[in-house]
């Protein structure tokens, strides 16, 4: 059964259809949240679970103009933002000084480590635009940011990563 059919059934209250959607989307959503949560898997999974439960409650509000994955990512991002704000964990506008470049190990590990040093909107924007292949317009909508702000987060995040990883851009 395709996603549109599953969505129609879920909107009509079919919990099994929504369960199938959870199985389809759990991996990218948990991956996105792990990036946001700086690798804290338990926190990411808790927030992913809450995001899916919220999506189930609000499935009637989902409009097919955007993708279901994008809608989920938006709910998940809001959940993470709320969690971080409650604990005052994420500086949102502080351009913290970056320490020196990371030592080379495994490229993916390097990237994950470097990502943890970026600000939340930079991590989120880069993950959405590159790893999850959203357009910048879609990413701006998910993060509820003006397009120009998203673009500057992407550019700043890339620049910081370039310094951290000493990559060729």
């Amino acid at each position, binding site marked *: 059964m395709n996603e549109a059919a599953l969505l129609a059934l879920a909107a009509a209250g079919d919990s099994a259809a929504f369960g199938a959607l959870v199985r389809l989307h759990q991996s990218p959503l948990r991956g996105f949240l792990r990036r946001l949560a700086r690798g804290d898997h338990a926190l990411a999974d808790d927030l992913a679970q809450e995001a899916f439960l919220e999506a189930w409650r609000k499935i009637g509000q989902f409009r097919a103009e955007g993708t279901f994955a994008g809608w989920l990512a938006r709910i998940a991002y809001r959940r993470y933002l709320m969690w971080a704000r409650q604990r005052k964990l994420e500086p949102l506008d502080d351009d913290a000084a970056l320490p020196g470049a990371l030592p080379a190990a495994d490229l993916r590990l390097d990237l994950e480590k470097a990502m943890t040093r970026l600000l939340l909107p930079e991590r989120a924007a880069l*993950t959405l635009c590159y790893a999850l292949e959203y357009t910048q317009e879609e990413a701006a909508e998910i993060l509820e940011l003006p397009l120009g702000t998203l673009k500057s987060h992407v550019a700043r995040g890339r620049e910081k990563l370039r310094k951290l990883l000493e990559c060729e851009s």
Partner: protein
Amino acid sequence: MTTKPDLDALLAMPLAPIADEGFSGAVEVKMAAQDQSFAWFELAAGVMVLALVALVVPVARLTAPFEAIAINLALSWQFVVACAAIALTHAALRLLPD
């Protein structure tokens, strides 16, 4: 660093796939619990609303007009004659052979 990878290519690497390992099942269990608690909440809210309505609405004042109508009808000879005619017609229809 020994290698200088292309940053865009590095960023575009897909996120590592995450095995389900019971995650979806746990979500479905919580969905069912959430639905059940909503159903209970709706029932409790309904009962509360009814109880409040019963407390606030003057039931005696609402039923008083109907009582008055019933008494007036019972005291009206036209109504009594009409009822008697209906009863007699009904009895005659049952007693008379087809």
